């Protein structure tokens, strides 16, 4: 049974671990108010991950991309648009921002999106590609783009 607390080394290893799609199912990128959770796995299939995508109903630009490990541990979370974030040291980070797992804090720390790794966060589809690359998803799931992505 998974534990909700990981050491930083364990979390870093999970983030860096190569990930493949767990099925060949096809998914639609979430439309307004929709969400999607897609299973991923390590190449040896021993470690399981989840890719979560969701989009606001009122604000279509409010898109969340998230990579979970061990069912409930948010390893990486990218918030495009949406609310600002306040770190435990009181520093504030506006959206878009990137949450990264930190030992002892879970996903309570976030930082501005690293510009070299994400080309243009206004382009949701391109950002999904960048996010999958950032999370080392070497075999991405089949996700269909929609008109608003």
């Amino acid at each position, binding site marked *: *049974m*998974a*534990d*909700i607390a990981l050491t930083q080394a364990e979390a870093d290893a999970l983030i860096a671990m190569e990930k493949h799609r767990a099925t060949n199912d096809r998914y639609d990128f979430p439309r307004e*108010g929709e*969400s999607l*959770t897609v299973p991923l796995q390590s190449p040896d299939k021993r470690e399981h991950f989840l890719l*979560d995508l*969701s989009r*606001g*109903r*009122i*604000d279509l630009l409010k898109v*969340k991309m*998230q990579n*979970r490990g*061990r*069912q*409930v541990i*948010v390893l990486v*979370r990218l*918030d495009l648009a*949406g*609310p*600002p*974030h*306040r*770190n*435990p040291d009181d520093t504030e980070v506006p959206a878009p921002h990137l*949450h990264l797992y930190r030992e002892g804090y879970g*996903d*309570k*720390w*976030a930082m501005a999106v690293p510009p070299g790794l994400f080309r243009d966060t206004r382009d949701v589809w391109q950002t999904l590609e960048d996010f999958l690359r950032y999370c080392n998803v070497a075999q991405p799931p089949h996700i269909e783009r929609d008109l608003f992505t």
Partner: protein
Amino acid sequence: MIQDIQRLLDTYHAWLKDKTALRQVDDWVEITTPYLDRHNDYVQIYAKRANGGYVLTDDGYTIQDLEQSGCKLESQKRQELLRMTLNGFGVRLEDKALQVHASPENFALRKHNLLQAILAVNDMFYLAQPTVASLFYEDVVAWLDLHEIRYTPKVKFTGKTGYDHLFDFVIPKSRRQPERIIQTINRPNRDTAQSVVLAWIDTKEVRPPDSRAYALLNDGEQPVPQGVVDALRNYEVKPIAWSQRDNVREELAA
């Protein structure tokens, strides 16, 4: 002193106001509040005019985020907990969105209720499965300690096959009772019962012949399926529903 506190409260009110931001999104007004969710993101709600008053909503974010944090709300017990939480704040569920209607007179109160409901539902994350598993284990530890039942936690035995099996607790042999091995099962189902049975079958031959196995079954979330009880009994693992734990207290304490 009371003046100092009053001054501090005034500063707090000013800060709450300062940290509230408004933005027009189509016919809605987005309200960014000073409250943080469990990710440390500011909680946002939306308001628009409706029926001479206002409708306020979280736009479905709270439950969507909860489900995408591994806390499914499918079970009847969780649905009841959700309903009870929302009822307490007079908040309705509309297509997974938390929603209230407000008049100009009660706008502040209803907005506050919606925010409290969002934060309360947000906390239901702590019901996510692995969290509950660790809490159930902690409950068992607390109960054993309370009743002065002496145990060794997390004991590993190498089975007949050479595989190692980790058991939650071992209570050593006493003058009156043999060795007792206890495994907790947070979600009793066929798979978890099978895994305990296999571990016990492999282990019992390398333990003293009168050694006994117990499975403590969490029935707080949902009732234990009869098949699980039967399977455990068939392989000489004594099933104990957590709600019936007092029935074995003396047996374990001896």
